[in-house]
């Protein structure tokens, strides 16, 4: 089959590789019909998460058709149209039973790396390095899906492929941030980052009853999408003082919940951008946390800051004093998609959740290296590059 492989730092190529096999009785093989780039892939491609091996297949956000079924699979049959959660979870360990699926004890067959880095290992993820299990990614014509009864979800007939695709990760991640950030009716929610995940976090905040949702970015086309498709107010941090704007918008209080959907390669304005860049390049910090810092400062007293963007290890100049003295709740998580995908698909079927606008550039998998470059450079207003592996 054809697959998009990481071949070195900032190097990708489409290669012919072996087809996947059923390895466990609860596996299915999915013929991938659509897969999308994700901002978190850029951390892998750029070597910021250095646990890729040359030849590893990228991709974790996808949907497709079941073409082969393991002997213990009960919920799926050949021919089913499914969207697959990007995280791999067994559904039966204590964490899965608490619906903390990305923390699954059994989804990562290679726990040593993340146990050394973080103390304990989270679950596995498709195409997200050997630190997250070494599972082959979904930017391929076929992909093996472990624990398929738990991680693959039938797509309702009334939901088109391009909409369903984003239930796999973007929407489910957004739902994770708003739900675990405990957005309540009447809240004002600020979201840093107007990419796919940020827009979906804003949509999730509305779904949980927020009264006001503000999305912050610097890319005009993404802010326009947040306004048009998610009905959010928007702020461009290159044009205005975000802290001042948020205080003015919230009667001087600050947002109740601040969701950071940017991650370890954040940009900001002013000297802190230079500071973070230099420290990151000198390896004195692995991640640039400028959006988190801003969220901590902007958040109201007693509010919640949720880190939804991906971070790898250590950051500098973290405003812990503000967290403590303002009585903030600081929380983070990878996505617990198994918990939210059914609700997301229901909302898609009802027409109350729109996602297909995120697919600004749709192309053959053969063009995926070019698609990732466009996505990285935000060329031509690229919000997401979506790949069709069988075109």
């Amino acid at each position, binding site marked *: 089959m054809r697959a998009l492989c990481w071949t070195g*730092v900032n190097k990708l190529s489409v290669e012919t590789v072996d087809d996947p096999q059923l390895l466990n009785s609860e596996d299915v093989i999915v013929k991938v019909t659509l897969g999308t780039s994700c901002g978190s892939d850029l951390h892998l491609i750029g*070597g*910021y998460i250095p*646990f890729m091996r*040359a030849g590893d297949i990228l991709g974790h956000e996808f949907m497709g058709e079941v073409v082969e079924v393991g002997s213990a699979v009960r919920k799926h049959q050949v021919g089913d149209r499914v969207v697959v959660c990007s995280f791999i979870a067994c559904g039966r360990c*204590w964490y899965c039973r608490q619906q903390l699926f990305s923390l699954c004890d059994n989804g990562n*067959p290679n*726990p040593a790396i993340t146990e050394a880095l973080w103390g304990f290992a989270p679950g596995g993820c498709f195409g997200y390095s050997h630190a997250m299990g070494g599972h082959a990614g979904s930017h*391929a014509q076929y992909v093996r899906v472990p624990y398929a009864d738990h991680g693959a979800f039938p797509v309702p007939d009334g939901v088109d492929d391009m909409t369903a695709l984003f239930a796999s990760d973007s929407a489910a991640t957004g739902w994770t941030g708003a739900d675990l950030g405990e957005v309540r009716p009447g809240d004002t929610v600020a979201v840093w980052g107007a990419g796919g995940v940020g827009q979906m976090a804003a949509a999730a905040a509305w779904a949980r009853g927020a009264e006001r949702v503000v999305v912050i970015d610097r890319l005009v086309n993404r802010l326009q999408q947040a306004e048009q498709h998610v009905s959010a107010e928007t702020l461009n941090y290159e044009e205005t003082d975000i802290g001042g704007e948020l205080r003015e918008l919230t009667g001087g209080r600050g947002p109740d919940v601040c969701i950071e959907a940017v991650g370890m390669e954040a940009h900001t304005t002013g000297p802190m951008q230079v500071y973070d860049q230099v420290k990151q390049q000198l390896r004195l910090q692995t991640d640039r946390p400028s959006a988190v810092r801003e969220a901590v400062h902007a958040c109201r007293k007693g509010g919640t800051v949720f880190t939804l963007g991906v971070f790898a290890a*250590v950051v500098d100049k973290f405003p812990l004093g503000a967290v403590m003295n303002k009585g903030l709740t600081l929380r983070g998580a990878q996505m617990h998609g198994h918990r939210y995908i059914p609700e997301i698909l229901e909302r898609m079927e009802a027409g109350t959740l729109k996602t297909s606008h995120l697919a600004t550039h749709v192309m053959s998998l053969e063009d995926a290296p070019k698609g990732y470059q466009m996505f990285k450079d935000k060329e031509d207003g690229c919000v997401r590059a979506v790949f069709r592996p069988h075109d």
Partner: protein
Amino acid sequence: MRLGTSVVVGALGVGAAALVRRLWTRTSTQADGATTRERWLVVTVALPQEEAAPDGRLPEPLAELGDRIEVEVRPAPGDKGTEIAARYRDPKEEHAGLASRVEGESPRQQLRSALRRSKQLLEVGEVLRVSPAPHGERSATPGGALQELVTEVGRKEGRL
């Protein structure tokens, strides 16, 4: 140094620091100067004790280690399931050379792997496999060899 290379080296450095810290911890000494015995290795299985070890029977990976290990099975607090703790009866078994550890053959690694596999067998019914996974052309580099080694012993190492 190219940017990409420096990124990889830097981030690997963070991982290496964590590993060194771990190794340091494991060779710590008691206040009287005597080397401490290795800790019990413990997993918690999300099952009640009567299902995790019915009539005291251990799952196969642990049973295979026979009398070489001592095992304690006890309920976890807060309805979190059952704790299974194990260690070698003979402390000499716990001390292995670096070579056997690199090869994934040290007794400590075998016990850790047995505990992890036991937990998966009890909770899920089988051990999750990841290999063979399809992949593109592999280049022969020191970094790749290191990655391969880390992956090989991934289930046998860690903080468990």
